[in-house]
């Protein structure tokens, strides 16, 4: 069958080739829009015909995102995470109906949030059971295990949280850097062992981030897509760092030791940011017994992270300042995390950081593995990997928050 002559659909006046017309902008846009237009028409048709009229059971979901306690007052930030608009009509605190001021009179739209201010003379250290009753008489509860004033932004609080972050994160990591002289004097075999420890440690950290992330994700409404945030962050970070790493070393066989160490520091830094979030959050809830026991446990747990940073650059010339910089890159985010976790916590943000941290750590673990040319798959290297994970597990037991 002879081909049908195709008239040109090109909008440009010039251009002689008829085949070019089939890729004109107009055609492409039209072809792209066509299914969408038809879909819109079908959906409109559905709204006209109507769906079967099932019995109307109200479906509401309210999430108490944040509870802030000030003397004599409870302030709740709530978010509508259900499909319908919702109105809070009554509030009950510890089995008592209480007056309250709400941020808006109109019903709360989907995914909107507002603040409830409840004057209530709560007693320090005692639990609070809060129930919100919607206009459809559906109850949503929030609990405070032990009421303490929520830290507000002040030099004192910032200083306290910074101190927490330093003790727990920054200082131990910097101390871990001091293993460098040891590593410099080791033979290749023994070095592989320590690199193995590094990788095992990193794998453990990545797993820990993901598990903690899933736990957080379960505690927030499904509509926020918690697990997705976590995994998307991890996948995104992994792929991004892979690409960046390849770009940085170009035609060479792999990243330089310094780049590797920097990636380790970055990954650990992200993980420590999330750790800082957890610590700051616990502090805000009054749950942290700032005992020496806790600090000691965290210190040991995090000191080995310093080892992970210096292992890749052993026997390579690195300036002292550079090393310091790497240590701070890994350790200081704990302070930032503590600030955010204590003063402006956000579960979705925490999930993103945990995910990104896990992805970055996995990428760098892979990079180290590649750089040692399979030395970690057997012998002292493998032993090191297993030992590294075990050490993190054991020290982690000391600091269960």
């Amino acid at each position, binding site marked *: 069958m002879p081909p049908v002559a195709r008239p040109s659909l090109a909008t440009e006046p010039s251009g002689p080739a008829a085949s070019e017309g089939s890729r004109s902008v107009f055609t492409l846009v039209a072809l792209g829009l066509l299914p969408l237009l*038809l879909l819109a*028409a*079908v959906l*409109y*048709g559905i*709204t*006209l*015909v*109507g769906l079967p*009229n099932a019995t*109307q059971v109200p479906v509401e979901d309210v999430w108490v995102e944040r509870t802030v306690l000030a003397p004599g007052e409870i302030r709740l930030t709530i978010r509508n995470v259900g499909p319908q608009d919702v109105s809070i009509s009554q509030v009950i605190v510890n089995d008592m109906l209480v007056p309250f001021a709400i941020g808006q009179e109109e019903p709360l739209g989907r995914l909107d949030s507002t603040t409830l201010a409840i004057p209530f003379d709560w007693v320090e250290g005692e639990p609070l059971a809060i129930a919100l009753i919607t206009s459809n008489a559906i109850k949503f509860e929030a609990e405070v295990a032990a009421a303490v004033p929520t830290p507000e932004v002040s030099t004192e609080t910032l200083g306290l949280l910074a101190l927490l972050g330093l003790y727990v994160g920054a200082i131990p990591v910097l101390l871990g850097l001091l293993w460098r002289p040891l590593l410099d004097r080791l033979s290749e075999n023994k070095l592989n062992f320590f690199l193995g420890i590094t990788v095992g440690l990193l794998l453990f950290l990545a797993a820990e981030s993901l598990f903690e992330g899933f736990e957080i994700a379960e505690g927030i409404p499904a509509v926020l897509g918690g697990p997705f945030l976590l995994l998307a962050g991890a996948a995104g970070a992994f792929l991004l760092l892979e690409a960046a790493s390849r770009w940085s070393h170009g035609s060479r066989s792999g990243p330089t030791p310094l780049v590797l160490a920097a990636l380790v520091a970055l990954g650990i830094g992200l993980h420590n940011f999330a750790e800082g979030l957890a610590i700051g959050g616990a502090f805000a809830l009054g749950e942290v017994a700032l005992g020496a026991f806790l600090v000691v446990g965290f210190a040991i747990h995090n000191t080995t992270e310093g080892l992970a940073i210096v292992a890749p650059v052993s026997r390579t010339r690195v300036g002292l300042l550079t090393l310091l910089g790497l240590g701070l890159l890994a350790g200081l985010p704990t302070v930032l995390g503590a600030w955010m976790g204590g003063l402006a916590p956000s579960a979705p943000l925490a999930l993103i950081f945990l995910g990104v941290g896990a992805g970055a750590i996995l990428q760098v673990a892979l990079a180290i593995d590649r750089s040692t040319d399979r030395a970690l798959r057997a012998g002292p290297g493998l032993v090191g990997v297993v030992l590294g994970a075990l050490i993190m597990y054991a020290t982690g037991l000391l600091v269960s928050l």
Partner: protein
Amino acid sequence: MRVLLAALLLPLVLAGCSTPIENAGPVATNHVNIPDEWVFEPREIQVKVGTNVTWTNNGKTFHSVTFLDPPFDEDIERNQTVAYTFTEPGTFDYTCKYHPGMDGRVVVTA
């Protein structure tokens, strides 16, 4: 080819033109039926001023036709019919006072 295209598009055209069950505008009739379910069928009707509107209860239980405006509130037993003549134009909502959610509307045009 054009025939094929037309055949593909026809259902869409019909969907657009068909009279939907639930959300159409008022139905031009002066008779409302109550079936076994607690609904008025059709839910929204349109009549001219002076029309005598009737409601017939073909359901399992008694209902009521309760308007606030105009003041018309009648119980309607099983197999009974009640009627009302609308003398003013306007939109008049009514309910069954025994069954929440069982409501209807009469649109009276001049």
